[in-house]
C-alpha cells in the first residue's frame, strides 16, 4: 500500500480529513515550487497535488491557466515535473499526486509516463480529460508501473457512470465539489453532501473533494463529507500575487494553517 492509500485509509478510520494543496510545478520556478511545497508541508499539509502545466487546460479557470502559462514560459517540462515531484516527496516525506492533461502524457508515451511517475515516488496520477470511458489503457499502464489512477465524480454524474468509476478501482475518487472549472467561490457548494452520500452508499473507495474550495469556511463545510480535500486556486493565486518567493511561502503557509485549523476544529 502506498503512503497515500495508507493515509487515506487512516483518515477513513479516524473520521479525519487530509489536506492536499495543489500547486503548478515550476511556479514561479522549480526551486521556488519546492520551497512552497515545503512551506505548506510545515504548515500542516498531508500531501500534495503537483500540476504539470499544459497550454490548453479545459478544466481550469483563469488563475491556474495563468500559472500554467507562466510555468511553461519559465521552462517547466515533463522531465522538470518528475524531477520536482521527486524532490518534494523526498524533502517532505509526504505523498504526492501528479496531475496533468492527456496530450503531454500520450506524447511521452503512456507507459513511459507512468514509469517515470513511479520512479519519481509519486503515488497516483490524475489525467483531467480522461473520463472513465477512456480510462482502461490508462488504468492498466498505471497499475503496471505501480502508481494509482484517480478518477472523477461530478455533481452531474449519472448512477451508471458512478458505478463504472467505482468498478475501475481508482486510488481515490476526486469529487468535484462544484460545477464549473477550478476557481475560488464566494460560498460553499451545495452539492458536496449529496455527492458524498451517493459515493459512500456504493463504495468505500476514499473520496477527496476539490474545485471551488477556496478557504477555511468552505473547507470546514466540505471536510465532514470527505476523506481529503484539495485546495488549488486559492494557493496558486497567493503565489501569483506575491512579490517574491518568501512572501508567497508565508501567504500559502498561512492559508494552509487556517484551513488545517478549520477542518480539524
Amino acid at each position, binding site marked *: 500500500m502506498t503512503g497515500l492509500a495508507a493515509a487515506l485509509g487512516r483518515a477513513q478510520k479516524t473520521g479525519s480529513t487530509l489536506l492536499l494543496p495543489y500547486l503548478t510545478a515550476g511556479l514561479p520556478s522549480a526551486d521556488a515550487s519546492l520551497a512552497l511545497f515545503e512551506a505548506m508541508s510545515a504548515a500542516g499539509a498531508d500531501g500534495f497535488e503537483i500540476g504539470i502545466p*499544459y*497550454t*490548453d*487546460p*479545459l*478544466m*481550469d*479557470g*483563469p488563475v491556474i*491557466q495563468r500559472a500554467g*502559462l507562466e510555468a*511553461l514560459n519559465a521552462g517547466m*517540462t*515533463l522531465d522538470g515535473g518528475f524531477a520536482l515531484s521527486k524532490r518534494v516527496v523526498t524533502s517532505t516525506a509526504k505523498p504526492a499526486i501528479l496531475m496533468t492533461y*492527456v*496530450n*503531454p*502524457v*500520450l*506524447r*511521452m508515451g503512456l507507459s513511459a509516463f507512468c514509469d517515470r511517475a513511479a520512479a519519481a515516488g509519486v503515488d497516483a496520477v490524475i489525467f*483531467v*480529460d*480522461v*473520463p*472513465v*470511458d*477512456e480510462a482502461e489503457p490508462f488504468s492498466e499502464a498505471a497499475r503496471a508501473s505501480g502508481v494509482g489512477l484517480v*478518477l*472523477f*465524480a*461530478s*455533481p*452531474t*454524474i*449519472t448512477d451508471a*457512470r458512478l458505478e463504472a468509476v467505482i468498478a475501475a478501482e481508482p486510488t481515490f475518487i476526486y469529487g*468535484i465539489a462544484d*460545477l*464549473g*472549472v477550478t476557481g475560488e467561490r464566494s460560498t460553499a457548494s451545495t452539492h458536496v453532501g449529496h455527492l458524498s452520500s451517493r459515493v459512500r452508499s456504493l463504495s468505500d473507495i476514499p473520496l477527496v473533494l476539490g474545485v471551488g474550495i477556496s478557504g477555511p469556511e468552505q473547507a470546514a463545510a466540505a471536510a465532514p463529507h470527505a476523506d481529503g480535500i484539495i485546495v488549488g486556486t486559492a494557493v496558486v493565486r497567493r503565489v501569483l500575487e506575491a512579490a517574491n518567493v518568501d512572501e508567497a511561502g508565508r501567504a500559502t503557509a498561512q492559508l494552509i494553517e487556517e484551513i488545517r485549523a478549520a477542518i480539524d476544529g
Partner: protein
Amino acid sequence: MTTTGPDVRGRFGEYGGRFAPETLMPALEQLEQAFTDAWADPAFHGELDELLSGFVGRPTPLYEASRLSDALGVRLILKREDLAHTGAHKINNTVGQALLAGRMGKTRIIAETGAGQHGVATATACALFGTECAVYMGAKDVERQALNVYRMELLGAEVIPVTSGAATLKDAVSEAMRDWVGTVENTHYIIGSVVGPHPFPLIVRQFQKVIGEELSRQLAAHEELPDTPDIIVACVGGGSNAMGIFHPWLDSGVELVGVEAAGHGLTSGAHGASLVAGSPGVLHGSRTYMLQDEEGQVVEAHSVSAGLDYPGVGPEHAYLRDSGKVRYEAVTDDEALAAFDLMSRTEGIIPALEPAHALAWIDREKESLAGKTVVLNLSGRGDKDVQQIAAIRAATT
C-alpha cells in the same frame, strides 16, 4: 469500419473518442441520445427541411464557372454555399443544433467563433428560436472582425472576448468548453466544426452532409453536367464543409481533396496544416492530428484565413487521411490571396479566404487536372474578408 462511422465509442478507427472532463460527460451522453432520437424522428427532419429551404435557402445552386474554367483549363463547378443565409455553410449546422437544443429543453446556447462566421450563424439560429446566446471569440479576432461582432450583437447575442492563451480560435473553443463545464444543466454548446468530443463530430457531419447529397442530386438532374465529377475539392480547417461535401461521396471512387492552410509555408512554423504537417494527439476532446511540440503542448496555428487558423482538425478527417480515402494538401497565404483575386475578377464572385485555398490548389495543379470536371465547395462568401485584404494590400504596397 465502414464510412458511416463512428463506432459506439465515438471512434473513427483510432481517432475521435471522448477526452473530456467528467463534468461534461453526462451532457455528452444526453446529447448523443437526443441526437439519435431526433435523427430517427421524421417530425424532426420535417422541421429541419422546412427551415433549410425557407430560412437557409437550400438547395444552394450548383454553378458552372465558365470563365474560371477557361482560365484554368478544367471544367470547374461551384457548389454555392456562399449563397446560403449568412453567407456560409455554417448555418446548416447551427439551425440543426438549435432545433436539437430546443428538443433537449436547453434555454441557453453558447458557441465559439474565429472569423465570426460560425458565431453569426449561431446568433442567427438563436434569434430564430428566441434562445439566449453567448459567443466566445478571441480578443484578437474581436479586433480584426469588428463587423461580424456587430452583426452578432444586432442579432441579440453576447460576444465575450477571450484573452487567455493566444486570444484566437483555439482559446475561444477552450473558453466555451469551460463555460459549458459550469452551465451544462441549462446550456447547449454548438461547436462550429466536426471537432470536439463524441458526438460532436458525428452531429456536425450529419447536419453538413446535405451539401454532398444535394451535389449528387443536382449533378444527376443537370443535363449538361456529368453525374459523377472527377474530383471534389474543399478547404479544411476543422473540416466541416469538407466533411459535408465529401461524406456522401466517400465510396464513390471520385477523388476527394482537402486543402489545408500552409500559412507562411509548411517549414515556417506558421501554418494550420494539422493533417499534412501535424501529428496525432488529443485536442479539445478527441484524438486527431494536431500541431504540437515535443512536450505535447499545443502549438499556435497561423493562416491568413481566420477559419483555417486552428491547430487541430476533425477526427474523421484524421481517419480518412490514414486510410487514404481522402488526399490532403496545403497552400500558402500568398497562393490563397492570388486565388481570391482570380475568382473575384474572373467570375464576379468574391470568395471567402477559406475556399480560396481550395481554388489555389486547383490553380497550382491545373496541368494535371486539365480537362477534368472539378467540383469546388465554395463554402462562404468573401465580404467578411474584404477589410482584411485591403489592410494586407495597404501594408505591402
